[in-house]
């Protein structure tokens, strides 16, 4: 089985979010970049398929050279090869079109992406990719088993979960549950050394067009101070929630 894991290069979850160039660009100054958490659950599940079922795992990112350390980290965790599509990611549709080209070229059976990236939160690349390559698609995926060309997946739905049967070729959008937090791997020295020798190929983009355009960023308005209520006067809290906030 050939697996492609899509890796988004995103600011660390604790990053302070600021903008530059008249609020049109994300300020990367002092920001640590990591593998998108939802993608990391998928990558770790892919490692399981590699170790238990002999799958071959390639990781891919659409982005500039600055994303290569993130791809190297995925190689250090255990992926066999990496691909970087050498273009700036402008919107979900453009990224999906570039990825579709990579999938068609490489003949992958299973594509694992994250439910959404924690920076743009579009939640659209995996679905668009599945639509473009006409593969089966399961989103919010919290469990995945593959036997031959048959797959069983579990999807989180509002208020529960559902189990589906499907088949390869398949695209899944994963999240926590695909593996547990405690299953995530920190690259060890041997992995880091080996990652230096693994192939990271840079492919030129198809120059797919973006369909949307980021015009400007805004930060939420600063919040007013908290109203503190004395723990011995909980009546006051009920009163505030009813009469002032009007939420009960």
């Amino acid at each position, binding site marked *: 089985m050939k697996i492609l894991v899509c890796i988004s290069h995103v600011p660390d979850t604790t990053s302070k979010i600021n903008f530059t160039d008249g609020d049109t660009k994300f300020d990367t100054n002092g920001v640590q970049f990591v593998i998108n958490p939802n993608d990391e659950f998928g990558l770790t599940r892919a490692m399981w398929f590699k170790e238990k079922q002999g799958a071959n795992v390639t990781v891919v990112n659409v982005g500039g050279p600055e994303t290569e350390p993130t791809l190297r980290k995925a190689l250090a965790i255990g992926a066999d090869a990496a691909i970087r599509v050498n273009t700036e990611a402008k919107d979900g549709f453009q990224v999906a079109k570039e990825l579709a080209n990579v999938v068609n070229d490489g003949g992958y059976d299973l594509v694992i992406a994250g439910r959404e990236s924690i920076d743009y939160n579009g939640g659209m690349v995996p679905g668009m990719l599945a*639509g473009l390559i006409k593969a089966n698609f399961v989103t919010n995926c919290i469990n995945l088993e593959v036997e031959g060309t048959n797959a069983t997946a579990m999807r989180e*739905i509002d208020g529960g979960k*559902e189990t*589906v049967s499907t088949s390869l070729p398949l695209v899944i959008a994963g999240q926590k549950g695909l593996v*547990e937090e405690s299953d995530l791997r920190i690259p060890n020295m041997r992995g880091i050394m080996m990652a230096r020798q693994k192939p990271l190929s840079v492919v030129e983009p198809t120059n797919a067009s973006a369909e949307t355009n980021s015009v400007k960023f*805004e930060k939420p308005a600063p919040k007013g101070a908290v109203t503190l209520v004395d723990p011995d006067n909980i009546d006051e809290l009920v009163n*505030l929630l009813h009469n002032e906030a009007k939420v009960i």
Partner: protein
Amino acid sequence: MSVLVYTESEQGKFKKVALEVASYAKAVADQLGTTVTAITINAGDTSELGNYGVDKVLQVTNGDLDKFNANSYASVIEQAAKQEGANVVVLSSSADSKYVAPLVAVGLEAGYASNVVEAPSSTAPFTVKRTAFTNKAFNMTSIDTAHKVIGVSKNAFGLVASSGNASSEDFSPSIPASGVTVQSIDKATDKVTIADAEIVVSGGRGLKGPENWGMVEELAEVLGAATACSKPVSDLGWRPHSEHVGQTGKPVASNLYIAIGISGAIQHLAGINASKVKVVINTDPEAPFFKAADYGVVGDAFEVVPALIEKLKAFKAQNA
């Protein structure tokens, strides 16, 4: 030329998000000087949609669509958009709608903006405001294609009543074969879900152990709320993953969010920030959550929560 909105229903009844996206579609239609058409799948009585600005309903009734299926539903919405000549398609942010929207966008070759919180700020170029960086920022996004797909954030635009009548007609699209088959659904029907809840009551590590969740559940019951938890609590296995809210868990956009014994790590706050009113109960006055909350109680949850339950019961009895 009308604006098409997918109005979801469950067991024949419209979800609240369906009425919210109908309200949003009406606002877009007013800006474009056109009408709103809703597409419904096995919805039953559709007259309620008229109260939220829908002019016409395309009603699909098909036993093959009883269980949600992303490919089939996306195809139905796409065929409806084509029949109506709709350039704008509006969907909600429910799990199912977020599943369908990217497929619809590919089918219509449409630009898609998700997590949209306001009516378009302009229609030429077509520009919407969406959340980004997990609620830590907003992004103004223009959709530059002829067809546009908009995913509206939950509880952001709200319900806007409108007087009107929605005419209804049967719609019989072709249903493509799907490669994904639902085997089983495991869904608690007696509990309020985090996605649908107006109020969410959430517990953190400050509650010391899973055995102390009785009062969280009781508070939720009094308020008709859903229960949730912080990431450490789900990682420790005190509560199921499905209750984990935050950046890597479920997003919360309720009217009221009550955090008990949660310090308020940046990742947690990002996931619950879209809630309108936040209350924090914590022994530590330095907990970062106090900076994000509207109301706070510095105190021991084991005293404050039982007191709150008692006062709320009295309040309910009085206002019943």
